[in-house]
């Protein structure tokens, strides 16, 4: 599903040039659950942003579903993202002024789906996440675990082929964390490819494969299952 070859990402400031990703190459197959680990600053999040088409790359190749997307413009990326990718963040990134329902509906608003169909899909996913009773609440009225479930619901509502999760349990206690990881495992079992950045060995164990990074490069790959 994803093939990156000699990926390069350099951050430049007036005085400094930092190589975040240095000729990074790896492949993720459809239906895989991959955990990316490594110390802070090793380039995990940068990698995730590039995989999510949220950031440009400075060199190398990025093939998504057989298409080279490295040179895609903003509009094409946006379309590709809407159709294929869901995001889960450590800090949930919900919009405080929108209700749970509206937050989950967000990615569907930017598709051509009609309102009725959108409502149906959102309700289905809320049901799956056991959040129906909270559909009209605002994020601030929910617990951390519930907020992350809303974020996961938003990530999966348009049936993405790929979910990119950036430390999804980082802000949660262990009970809520486990709940979210179970959700991810279920989604993966249903066929969604997942790439998750994490510091937690415990969470990484939910994945099929762990990629360990250091200084913008892959140092080891452990296959768990």
């Amino acid at each position: 599903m994803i093939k990156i070859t000699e990926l390069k990402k350099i951050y430049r400031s007036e005085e400094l040039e930092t190589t975040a990703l240095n000729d990074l190459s790896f492949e993720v197959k459809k239906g895989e659950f991959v955990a990316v680990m490594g110390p802070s600053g090793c380039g995990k999040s940068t990698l995730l942003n590039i995989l999510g088409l949220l950031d440009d790359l400075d060199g190398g190749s990025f093939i998504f579903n057989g298409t080279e997307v490295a040179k895609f413009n903003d509009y094409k990326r946006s379309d590709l993202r809407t159709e294929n990718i869901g995001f889960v963040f450590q800090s949930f990134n919900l919009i405080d002024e929108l209700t749970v329902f509206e937050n989950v509906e967000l990615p569907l608003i930017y598709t051509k789906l009609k309102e009725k169909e959108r409502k149906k899909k959102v309700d289905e996913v809320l049901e799956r996440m056991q959040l129906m009773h909270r559909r009209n609440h605002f994020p601030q009225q929910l617990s951390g675990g519930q907020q992350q479930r809303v974020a996961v619901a938003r990530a999966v509502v348009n049936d993405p082929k790929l979910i990119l999760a950036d430390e999804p349990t980082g802000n949660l206690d262990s009970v809520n964390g486990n709940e979210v990881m179970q959700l991810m495992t279920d989604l993966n079992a249903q066929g969604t490819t997942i790439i998750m950045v994490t510091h937690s060995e415990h969470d990484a164990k939910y994945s099929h494969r762990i990629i360990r990074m250091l200084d913008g490069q892959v140092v080891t790959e452990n296959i768990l299952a």
Partner: protein
Amino acid sequence: MFYTLISLIGLVISMGAFVILMNYVDFESHYDDFHTDSDQIYRAESYFTLNGTVADSWATSSFGYAGAMKAEFSEVKAITRINFKDNERIVRYQDKIYRERMVVFADSNFFSFFSFPLLKGDPQKVLREPNTIAISASAAKKYFGDADPIGKVLDITTRKVVFHCAVSGVFEDFPPQSHLKLDMIISYASTSQFERDFWYMHSAYTYVKTNSEADARTIEKKFPALAEKFKTEDAMRDKSWEIHMVPLSDIHLNPLKPMEFEVKGSKQNVRFIFVFALIILIVGWVNFINIMTSKSIERAGEIGLRKLVGSKMKHMMIQFFIESFIINFLAVSVFLILMVIALPFLTDLYYSPMFNQFWQRPMVWGLLVLIFLLSTLITGAVPILVLRKIKIAVVLKNRMSFRVGMGKGLRHGLIIFQFTAAIVLVVSTVTIRRQMDYMQGKDLGADVTQTLVFKTPAKTDDYEGKLEMITEKMKTIGGVKSVSRSSAVPGEMVDFFIANQRDNDPEKVSVLTEMFRVDYDFIDAYQLKIVKGRNFSKSFGADKDNSLILTQSAMKLFGFKNEEEAVGGFINLEGQGNKKYEVIGVLKDYHHLSLKENFRPVVFLMFSPWNMLDFQYVSVKIQGANAKAIAGMLEREYKSVFPDSSFDSFFLDEFFNRQYKEDVTYGVIIMIFTWLTIFIVCLGILGIASLMLLRRTKEIAIRKISGAKPWQILKLINMEFIRWVGLAIVIGTPLSWWIMHNWLENFPYRTEIEWWIFVLAGLLTVLVTGITVSIQTVKNALENPVKSLRNE
């Protein structure tokens, strides 16, 4: 810094505009109040009623009112008169010859009654002796240079009489805020007896001083009975002669009446400008409050923390007021600096007298201090009112949602107010402009183009003969289409009223009509349309002395059912005994004056009833573009025959359009300040949009990650503002319609308030808002969402 700058610019413009506009309001509203006892002075203005209905209303009174009122009414404390018959006179001193516009006769107490300062001469004595004259300082300079004018003799000439008057006084040029603008004042004792006590010629202004308003009203009540004693002639006997005692301070802003010379202001325009000034000030304040409130909400966390560590509301209030004080102080200072720079340019504008005295006007300083204090108070207090409810726990726990909800209603309300103001102002500007265009573009029914008019000369031997001779001679000049003489021209009031009767009217109703003396060529030259009958013609010998042509308005006033009945009908003219004058034609009504006035009932004739209706103008219709050369030739011809008169000419279309000068200026003022208001609103939108974006950075990033494209982000933010504009359109449309409908009601001939004006105002507001918001949003819309989230 950005927000402070925006608030500051908005405040400078709005405060500045407010002070300038209020200066206009104050200037216009305080005419004539420089006189001591100005509140006790009234002008007796005549009006005539028939069976309780006003038949006519003039600003003037007859020569006889003053004497009779002084003798009969104990309420009259003092009274003085100005006789402005033949007010435009040619004045000669040695080789200096000028035509002076306002040369009048005045009672000897004129300078003690009013407070016009005399530079030379004794107020009690200056106008006491016959054939003495007081002249303005500029006239003194013009005729005598630096020499002492006292005792020097001026020749003051009309078309029939020459006065030789010794200068007995020099007065300071009348101040700009005087409704009277006199160049020279001849002692009343110089006039004939007829001009002292005659009751049938209303060519005087009578000013009365009373002890109280009640006395003025008593005089009004007593006057009709007094007038009965003096209605010795047939004319106007059927009408009740009454007076209005009009307070001196009201004269300038009252509507123009027949026989008024001063350039009038407009009460309605002054009111409109006042409201406009308030709107622009409030728009500036709203900007400031909105931006400061939004900014302070950004600081809610900081304030929560301050509270946590024990800071009292009092300390924060002081902090807000100091900020507000500094910005307002800066705004006033910047305005003052800009005004010092701009004043010379403003002085060149139409209202130069208003700006000439700008720094001397206490109102300006008073207003500046007042709005500075008010502005500091309001702009400092509102953010405090919003923030005083801050609960420490809420802010610290949940900063984002707190920020969003806080003061939302107030801010939105204020933004909607700004948009509504913008819409009302745009509709007003367009409507005022359209009304001006309508008035200046509408067919007058008389051709005033390609017409050079010169004023007839001063008294000379064989006056009429020479005038006729020169008229004929001018007709032979190449490029001259026609030359005609008349007692008035379009754009100048006909003004010579007499009370006439339809012959054989059993009820003997006197009808006041304006008498317009013309020659054979005038009606054709001006392309006035004869609806029925014929023009004056040399083929009909009687036309010269016995024939009349009526306008349709005059025809109706005389009670003729239609043109057929009028032509061949007869009229008895006032003071001409039983002589019958035949109506030989009826003219289609035409606009003799601006479209601010209704059609006038005018009687055209070729002779001079009472020997008072002189030809005052010669109209030369020109063909081709060489008007200047032709004017030169006309002047040479004129000077060869009338060497002792000045040649004073003008192009009639310009002369006619001067009637709109005030309105055009008014339109320009409204337009300039409308754009300034829109500019302030734009600054406000810029500030609010930028703060909104700051607050919604995370949301925008999340939406982008969720698939929103840049244009969808633009749309999202724009829609927020457009919603407010929509609401403003709903409020502003009926409001602006109502305001403009009322404004237009004052014009007898008016344009329509078309639907598209509202669409235009709405679209313009949407467009300006869209552009402003988009400029601010586009950066955020294109920003990498990851970066935004990282910064959040």
